[in-house]
């Protein structure tokens, strides 16, 4: 009987398609993958310990660095946790602003993440650069309101740091004129491309029955056919006031995750439309003036708040001892926990599929290694 030699290959930490300094110790038999061991820690900076040393406010810019694609969402989740912990009211306008930023983040994240995945598949950057174009437009707007493109540091306890003005709303409307064209182009480019179908269909299948056990969340979970979206399941901010749908897949393969992300971008677009319509005027204020931002103290206790980040469930678990900084600060990072399914999802496929499956999980090492 023919027995082929097993080969151990290190994919990463310096490899074009590991999305940062991630390393996979891969054992292959020919081209078929026998075993995969993810290796972490190249970007570890003990973020959680920093959170215990910093005051509550000081920690806000550090959350930007978790998932650096969606710092707005990270800020939102963290602010929500501390608001729960300290019992802070948030004005309605601030809630709407946060929702608008979250949904813009979702669009830019999915656009680039899918671009990167297609890049891993070998589609030479076209989809990625189109996504980057939309991302740049959104980042310009983030820069306008928050002062920075990626490290926004935008939320404060009880609101946001700066109100959005007419310029922002005009530009947002302009952006939303263009977005449907982008969605159409993106879908037309590859959605039905025969080669993409051959590469993405039935690859990296995470069956519905197993998806929950793997604790995956976000588009990966929904791609497997479980309609679980925190915006619906445990509505936060003002998400219960919008009409939108939760897209789910059927098979749970790379293609389903791809489709779910595209559908989510369109749903985000709907939410943006409604949010702009419902946005209350500035009389209510954009931040709770009663909150002492710098010297905020939370009563002893614990709080966990989560939001639907573009990558999945992003939660912060904070234990307070009554002082101005957290006693324990834990990040439930979606890309980190989604990675626990990677090894099993990849087994039995080929090396070429591994990078695609990794791309379809959509990880950011800032969040994985923390």
């Amino acid at each position, binding site marked *: 009987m023919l027995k082929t030699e097993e080969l151990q290959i290190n994919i990463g930490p310096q*490899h074009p*398609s590991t999305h940062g300094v991630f390393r996979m110790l891969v054992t292959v038999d020919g081209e078929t993958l026998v075993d995969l061991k993810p290796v972490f820690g190249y970007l570890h900076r003990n973020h959680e310990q920093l959170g215990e040393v910093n005051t509550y406010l000081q920690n806000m810019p550090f959350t930007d660095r978790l998932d650096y694609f969606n710092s707005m969402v990270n800020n939102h989740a963290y602010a929500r946790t501390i608001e729960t912990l300290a019992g802070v009211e948030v004005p309605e306008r601030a809630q709407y602003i946060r929702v608008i930023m979250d949904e813009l983040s979702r669009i830019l994240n999915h656009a680039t993440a899918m671009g990167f995945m297609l890049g891993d598949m070998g589609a030479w950057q076209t989809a990625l650069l189109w996504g980057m*174009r939309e991302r740049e437009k959104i980042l310009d707007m983030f820069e306008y309101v928050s002062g920075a493109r990626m490290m926004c540091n935008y939320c404060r306890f009880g609101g946001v740091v700066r109100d959005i003005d007419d310029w922002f709303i005009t530009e947002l409307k302009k952006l939303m004129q263009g977005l449907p064209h982008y969605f159409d182009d993106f879908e037309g480019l590859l959605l039905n491309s025969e080669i*993409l179908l051959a*590469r993405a269909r039935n690859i990296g299948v995470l069956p519905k029955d197993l998806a929950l056990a793997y604790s995956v969340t976000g588009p990966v979970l929904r791609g497997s056919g479980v309609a679980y979206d925190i915006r619906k399941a445990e509505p936060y901010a003002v998400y219960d006031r919008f009409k939108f749908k939760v897209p789910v897949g059927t098979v749970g393969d790379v293609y389903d995750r791809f489709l779910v992300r595209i559908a989510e971008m369109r749903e985000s677009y709907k939410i943006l439309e409604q949010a702009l319509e419902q946005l209350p005027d500035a009389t209510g204020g954009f931040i709770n003036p009663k909150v002492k931002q710098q010297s905020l103290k939370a009563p002893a206790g614990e709080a966990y708040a989560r939001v639907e980040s573009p990558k999945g469930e992003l939660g912060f678990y904070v234990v307070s001892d009554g002082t101005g900084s957290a006693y324990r600060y834990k990040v439930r990072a979606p890309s980190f926990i989604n990675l626990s399914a990677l090894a099993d999802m990849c087994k039995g496929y080929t090396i070429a599929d591994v990078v695609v499956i990794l791309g379809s999980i959509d990880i950011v090492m800032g969040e994985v290694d923390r």
Partner: protein
Amino acid sequence: MADALTQLGFASWLSVLIASIIKVTLILVGGSVGMMFLTWYERRSISYMQDRRGPNRVGPQGLLQPISEAIKTMTKEDATPRDADKIVHFLAPVVMLGATVLSFAVIPWGRMFPVDLNAAVLFVIATGGLHSIGMMMAGWGSNNKFALLGGMRGVAQLISYEIPQVMAIIPVVLMTGSMSLQKIVEAQNDFAGLGWYVFSPVGLLGFALFFTASLAEGERTPFDIPEADSEIIAGYMTEYSGMKFAVFYLSNYMSNLAVCFVTATLYLGGGNGPGVDALGGIAGGLLSLVYFLLKSFALFFVMVLIRATVPRLRVDQLMSFAWKFLLPLVLVNILSASFWVALLRWDQQWPQLTEWFGAPSTADATNWGRLAIAIVLTLLINAGAVALIMRLTNRNVQKHLYTTDEELALGLS
């Protein structure tokens, strides 16, 4: 050229030598300049496809960018891995470039033929096949697992796609009756220089198949698996840097250029076009060169367009595409080419047929009635074959699951 030199009073061997050296120099310069232009052309056009501008700093419109890059690569450190097989590692790019340059010996530039070899068509393919040796040497000599994987993939791909590539040429050879590129170009000069093979059903299918197989031979997307950067970094080139890497790059793009030239010659009439014959002489030659380059660069633009659009295939899909899709179609195409030749020239090739069935009304190859019959017949055969294979492949793709139970049962029982 050698004759002209002999008339100038040189000894015959000396004139042959000088003429050869001049030719070789021209080919090398033409190939390298072509390659440089190609890199610029590819980068600029792909940039426009992606809503950006591409290199536009060095020289007018960035045209000198390749030169600056050549200087950059030449000044970079030339690193050889400690455990590499030094000699093989060193020789691999040499073999690659040598094989590519060899193919330029027979490739015509318009109506200028450096060497008119009788088996020129085969020669081009054969030199393309020599690439696999270079790849193997690079992959093995680097002593790197990614390089080895890339080399293995590359060689398997080249060998597989050589077969449909060679067989896709056979219809052309049948229709021309010769393997000389010069004769093939001459044969496409009917209809005021527009009698290109691509306008016949046989030639059209042959063109599509040959071009697809050539994409694989030239390692272009969607067949760029040997150097799939997102999977195996740079494949067999992983351990190369500096000038050696540049040589690989040069060889890749030169072979792409060669592929475009050969496709243009075989199916798009080479330097033929309206007005070439009418002008004649040097002016006609130049016009034919312009036509030829235009055709070749249009083909390259298609390559770039494909590169910007589609992802790459997986290795197993690549193989099944060659064996299950290209090969049957190529065989069918040979069949319809035989019908084509038989119908249009049966009295020339098979006089006994004329004896049995009576002579056709005229023995002219441009007999419209027979041409129409031939076109309809071959069109029917080819279209039917394409539809059938598409349908089969389609079912195959749709059912191409790792996980169907039939497959599972098949694989395990």
